[in-house]
């Protein structure tokens, strides 16, 4: 009996010393021999990447100085690139607003996410290190989204990416227009009504904001707290980005029109008919987060989606990102989404950016992740070959200096391939939830 207890104690000591990831943060890790695609510059052959205390401390050619005490990983023949950033996902088995209203700015998806969900393992297996998890699109506003680092976690707090010093903002606001939010009691019946309801609520939020400003710090003059309006004030102040689900060309322009009226930061999501209004999107200076699919169709207002959207938006000068919308596409195959965009004419450079730095910019985390640069978080992936090849596997995923996925470990690999009793949770397919894509 003694021995197991002692090893348990030792294991606990290990956890205390090294944190839940079981990896020492203090020993520098150096990766040598790989081609490094830093995104911030040209690929470096036979490059060196050094990370310490969760940060990148050096990226460069073969002569880059490696600290004497570093653990050196020879990854010759491999590719190292930044960890992938997904701007639109439904992993984590969360939820959002209910059917009581079409507008739920008060609802936080972070209150409903299971940090132990196997969908997180799936995403790590696909090389995803940062993600924007959103509630669905069956509402004009279905709730606050959450930005996560896919660190190994016991609680949702372990994963949050804080955007402000007070640590109160860690996501955006999900909005939707077009057909998904239509119908039902308390919901709009038409597109124009949808826009009117959103505008009405933002007008209220502006009034609420004015009252707060008028109080000028005097508690007795403050309006009663309204957590929904507080969220919209964050949107109006540019502290919280609106992620607007939209498909049809006219709905895309409506989303832009509302953002300009109230002056909030907007990311267009899906943008299925972007190819029809790419110049208008470019002129508005609004970024677009798009998806590539195995075929068009399945949903009427997305019937004219093109995998060439990336190409058209790139040519128009729009900041383009890609997303999985997992389970519409699979987090394990996120690089494939970019490859399909290349297949349809997007440049390799823009496609690589569309799964890394472009998405980091849309989530305001570009100073921490999305490229391999000194001082940024050590979020990177090691690939067996070209990022856009079907034969390439994600071999390792590292987040802030900790390895969270290793394909050579069978217990990890099963999340990349699937198999018997690997995935227990149900995939968020949108289909039964009234459609979200």
């Amino acid at each position, binding site marked *: 009996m003694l021995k197991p207890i002692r090893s348990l104690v030792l294991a606990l000591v290990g956890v205390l010393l090294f944190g839940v990831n079981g990896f020492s943060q203090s020993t520098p890790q150096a990766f040598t021999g790989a081609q490094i695609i830093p995104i911030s510059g040209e690929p470096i052959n036979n490059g060196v990447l050094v990370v310490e205390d969760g940060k990148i401390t050096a990226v460069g050619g073969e002569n880059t100085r490696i600290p004497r005490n570093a653990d050196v990983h020879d990854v010759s023949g491999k590719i190292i690139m930044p960890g992938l950033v997904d701007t639109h996902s439904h992993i984590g088995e969360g939820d959002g607003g209910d059917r009581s209203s079409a507008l739920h700015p008060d609802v936080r998806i972070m209150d409903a996410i299971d940090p132990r969900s196997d969908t997180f393992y799936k995403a790590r297996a696909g090389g995803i290190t940062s993600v924007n998890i959103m509630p669905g699109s069956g509402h004009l506003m279905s709730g606050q989204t959450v930005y996560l680092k896919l660190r190994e976690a016991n609680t949702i707090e372990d994963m949050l990416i804080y955007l402000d010093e007070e640590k109160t903002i860690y996501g955006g606001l999900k909005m939707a227009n077009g057909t998904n939010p239509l119908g039902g009691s308390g919901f709009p019946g038409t597109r124009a009504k949808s826009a009117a309801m959103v505008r009405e609520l933002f007008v209220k939020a502006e009034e609420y904001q004015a009252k707060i400003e008028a109080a000028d710090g005097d508690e007795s003059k403050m309006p009663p707290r309204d957590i929904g309006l507080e969220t919209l004030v964050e949107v109006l102040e540019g502290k919280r980005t609106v992620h607007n689900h939209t498909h049809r060309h006219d709905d895309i322009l409506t989303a832009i029109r509302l953002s300009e009226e109230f002056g909030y930061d907007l990311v267009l999501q899906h943008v299925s008919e972007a190819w029809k209004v790419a110049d208008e999107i470019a002129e508005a200076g609004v970024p677009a987060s798009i998806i590539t699919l195995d075929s068009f169709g399945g949903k009427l207002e997305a019937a004219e989606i093109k995998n060439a959207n990336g190409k058209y938006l790139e040519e128009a000068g729009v900041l383009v990102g890609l997303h999985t919308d997992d389970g*519409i596409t699979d987090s394990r195959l996120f690089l494939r989404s970019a490859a399909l965009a*290349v297949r349809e004419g997007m440049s390799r450079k823009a496609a690589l950016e569309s799964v890394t730095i472009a998405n980091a910019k849309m989530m305001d985390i570009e100073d921490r992740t999305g490229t391999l640069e000194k001082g940024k978080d050590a979020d990177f992936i090691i690939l067996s070959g070209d990022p856009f090849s079907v034969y390439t596997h994600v071999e390792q995923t590292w987040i802030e200096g900790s390895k969270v996925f290793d394909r050579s470990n069978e217990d990890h690999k099963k999340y990349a391939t699937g198999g018997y009793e690997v995935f227990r949770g149900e*995939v968020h397919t949108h289909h039964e939830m009234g459609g979200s894509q």
Partner: protein
Amino acid sequence: MRSFSKLLLIPVLLVAFVFSNAEAQIAVKGEMVYTMAGDPITDGVVLIKDGKIERVGSASDVSIPSNYEVHEAKVVTPGLIDAHSVVGLAGHLNQEHDQDQLETSSAIQPELRAIDAYNAREALVGHLRDHGITTVHTGHGPGALISGQTMIVKTAGETVEESVVVPAKMLAMTLGNNMSREISKPGTRSKGIAMLRQTFIKAQDYLEKRNGEEEYSKDLGMEALADLLEGKLTALVTVHKANDIMTALRLQEEFGFPMVLDGVAEAYLILDEIKAAGVSVTVHPTMMRTYGDGKNASMETAGKIYEAGIPVAFQSGYEGYVPKTRVVLFEAGVAAANGLGKENALKMLTIDAAKLLGIEDHVGSLVEGKDADIAMFDGDPLEYVTNITGVIINGEKVK
């Protein structure tokens, strides 16, 4: 071609008539030509005459007649084959008026013919064609014990009559927990099997009458089931869980009809049993979503089934939402990267699929006398970033 009855030959002849003579003769040059009948040919040539393959060989051996229209590609393969789809019955709009793959008025409807519901102009058919897929086994979908018949089409043609290769090929069946919720009965797995067994026993009696001397009243459903029992049709059983696969094999053993297992997410648990039963498999899309009965799906399953020596081909399957269809070319690529290998994936997309569907005398490899169905690529066909640069069906350039 045992399965071609006289009735079935009529559309085949129609196809031949429609496409013959009208087109210029064609030569296809490929830096790499995968004939799927022997080793690939470097710098190969395929000559096409009157819709059929006239000659295949190395450019140094085969001279191209001057009146032939020449097409060039990096890689040339036979037209690809989707061994099970619902396109043409299921349309891309996903509205009630373009979804004919499942009739929910009752659980057993073997009399429903695919040819009566196939829309040859459906955009999804064109989508598959643009990805090099020239032959599709399509028809009624999963969701009912017996949802109806399937057929084999070429992805060219503007009417079902122009497109059809085999008008009635299989009976689409579903076991396990994949039943449409709109069908009230059966409510359990075992009730479903009881219903099927009773139906097949009735069909045995019907077949006896059909083969007898006395007059009998014709029943369209029983006609189809009698054809199944006689081996003129094949049961295409969509099933994922290992225990349900075993149930399918039990049915097959009791009634003795030919069977193709479709989907089989948990096949890797019972490969020996599947092999011993002598059935073929249309394996689930490699990238299938892991939920419901298929939650234990693995990207390595196609490779494991192939390795076990079980006849197997790729399917695009049925999709209820976005995307509205998958593409076997893409599924093959991911399977190739997960244990199957490129050469085996190409075989499963072409000659193996043709054999599984019983049409290998017509399609599936680049051999003299076969239909001139060809896909052209600007690189490795399975790579994500490779484009399809040309498609030929029955000797006609369709892309």
